[in-house]
């Protein structure tokens, strides 16, 4: 057994522990992440700080190395599963402590498509960034999206597809939103391996997001624009 395997996480100071958790996330070590999260909470850290400083920051590094071709899908999945372990501990605590809310998103894979690795990563990173995420799963028909939008009233609709044969269904959903006159009520983000920016434009989405990190940044940017225009509207009403 190597020296690293024997590392006692509780012997590290906060800074060292957070650094170690970034390394453990990178290496996909779920149990170590769960242990690190518990130690930080025992030391009085706010759940939101554990989430952002230890987990989200660690996944941000993983995302950069994935984009740069240093890490590949299996390593990212291992890291995501480790983060999931930490999130499971933090989720109820975040709800109790009233962590900041960035907005709400409904997300699902389109009809005919059962792939959800990318979608799950986006869901997790969006949640980590403070969005409330309603994940409606895979193989969703127009009616599923419409029902979820009506029930949850999100700010953002996310659609995912892995197959060339299923990605055109995004246009079907967006056209249905237009027909019902509710297209402008939502920011529509699309993503998936065979998609590209031109496709996103062609189907009438607000943006194509090439990975989970871009999805989070894009969602934040749309939310701040929305809040900006809402504020401007209020000011105009007061004039």
């Amino acid at each position, binding site marked *: 057994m190597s020296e690293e395997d024997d590392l006692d996480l509780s012997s590290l100071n906060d800074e060292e522990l957070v650094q170690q958790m970034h390394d453990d996330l990178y290496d996909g070590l779920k149990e170590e992440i769960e242990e690190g999260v518990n130690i930080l909470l025992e030391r009085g850290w706010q759940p939101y700080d554990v989430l952002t400083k230890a987990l989200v920051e660690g996944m941000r590094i993983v995302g950069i190395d994935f984009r740069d071709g240093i890490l590949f899908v299996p390593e990212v999945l291992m890291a995501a599963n480790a983060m999931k372990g930490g999130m499971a501990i933090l989720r109820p605590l975040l709800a109790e402590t009233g962590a900041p809310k960035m907005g709400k998103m409904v997300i699902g894979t389109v009809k005919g498509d059962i792939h959800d690795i990318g979608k799950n990563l986006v869901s997790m990173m969006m949640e980590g960034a403070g969005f409330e995420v309603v994940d409606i799963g895979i193989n969703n028909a127009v009616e599923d999206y419409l029902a979820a939008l009506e029930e949850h009233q999100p700010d953002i609709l996310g659609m995912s597809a892995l197959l*060339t044969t299923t990605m055109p269904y995004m246009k079907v959903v967006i056209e249905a939103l237009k027909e019902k006159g509710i297209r402008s009520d939502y920011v529509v983000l699309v993503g998936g*391996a065979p998609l*590209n920016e031109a496709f996103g434009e062609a189907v009438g989405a607000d943006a194509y997001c090439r990975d989970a990190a871009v999805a989070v940044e894009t969602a934040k940017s749309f939310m701040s624009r929305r809040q900006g225009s809402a504020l401007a509207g209020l000011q105009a009403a007061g004039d």
Partner: protein
Amino acid sequence: MPGESLTRPSTLLIACGALAREVKHLLDVNGWSHMTLTCLPADLHNTPQQIPGAMRRKIRASRDRYDRIVALYGDCGTGGLLDDVLRDEGVERIPGPHCYQFYMGTDDFTRLAEAEPGTFFLTDYLVRHFDRLIIKGLGLDRFPQLRDDYFGHYVQLVYLAQTEDPELDKAAQAAAERLGLIYARRLTGYGELETFMAEAGHGDNAVQPVPAMRLSR
């Protein structure tokens, strides 16, 4: 026959490496000596964004030496970008998003995909290279616990057999067990691949231009 001349046009087939064995076989058994096969590496499927550029380079490097060039490729996850390149270069492609469809036939494939979206397909090539492309390619040799992340929503594995080969059948069955999927086998032969090659070899108008994969507003 209209469109057929005594001298058949020299034709270059640019194929995915995953089709090399099958295309070579069809060229040999049909005596299509006027058609030449060249391939792009099958491993490009792991980085589909590199396929359009590799195809363009191959076309441009070969154009002067052939009467016509034909692409034996699916869209293969390029999201329509391969078709953009082929349209720019005036090269026709066998219709369909991937080889499963043209082996099985468009109608059959569409019916099956709609009836059970959770179908994972193997071809002769994929059965032969299952360990390298699927197990190692997805990192399941290092992280077997990821199996359900990848295949949790799949229900069945359908082996689309190009040839009668009991060894491949056995290997495909073992692959299904390893992935935890119900196993089924369909003997497709070469399907639309053979028809398309025959038409391409005549140099007539039977080969239709590639339909646009992308949608326009």
